């Protein structure tokens, strides 16, 4: 039960964090200048967007949940399960960022879910 909760946090909080960071970076604007000083300015600007801090907090929560679940379960079980990020990412991208998810991408997500189910059943 605890492992399921931790895996849920790894996937949902990790993807949620990435979505928040994406939102923040879209607000900052496209990066076209890759000189160190310009990149430093972009980072400073990004740090002023509250979505960035929400995103970083969620990603930190996902990382510590990953560490906790790795203390219970094998890495060869945990890491393939975290591929559910792709499912969460497709849903989050569609509903929070307004991205268009192609049928082919949904098919890929479905295949990932089938694989995750097999990995879960294979452990029992």
């Amino acid at each position, binding site marked *: 039960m605890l492992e399921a909760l931790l895996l849920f946090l790894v996937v949902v909080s990790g993807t949620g964090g990435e979505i928040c960071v994406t939102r923040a970076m879209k607000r900052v604007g496209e990066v076209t200048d890759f000189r160190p000083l310009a990149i430093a300015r972009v980072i400073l600007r990004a740090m002023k967007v509250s979505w960035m801090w929400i995103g970083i907090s969620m990603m930190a929560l996902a990382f510590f949940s990953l560490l*906790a679940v*790795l203390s219970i379960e094998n*890495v*060869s079980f945990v890491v393939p399960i975290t591929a559910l990020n792709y499912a969460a990412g497709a849903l989050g991208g569609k509903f929070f*960022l307004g991205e268009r998810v*192609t049928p082919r991408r949904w098919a890929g997500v479905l295949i990932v879910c089938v694989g995750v*189910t097999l990995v879960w059943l294979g452990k029992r």
Partner: protein
Amino acid sequence: MSSSHSLHLKTYCMLLIMVLFAPLGNVLLGKGMRSVGSAVSWTPSQLPHILSLVLKSGYIWLGIASLLTFFVAYMLILSWADFSYVQPASSITLLVVALLGYFYLGERISPLHWAGIVIICLGVFVVGNTPPRTTEAR
């Protein structure tokens, strides 16, 4: 050497770094956490002590360093290669994690588990092979 040839070489080197260091980082984190003890028996009052054990583990720091190496390679490759090229190629990392877990950590993996991992790789390959941008730039 032509510039397209050197670009290919650069891309393959970065992919190799990604495919090796992401799984290595996860495996090292796994090994480090095994020495900390199972989270099933943790109580909230123990968390500061557990955090200090985590931060003292060499394996954890090596794992974090490996994941950072992966991340830098990932960022660099995305500066010239398409996301829809990089993501499917990196799906192989899931298989490498399982191989490292099996051979290096001695984890048991059932045939059904292997089948699941291969199917997940296939799914990630299909997901990644789709257009990386579907929204207009703002």
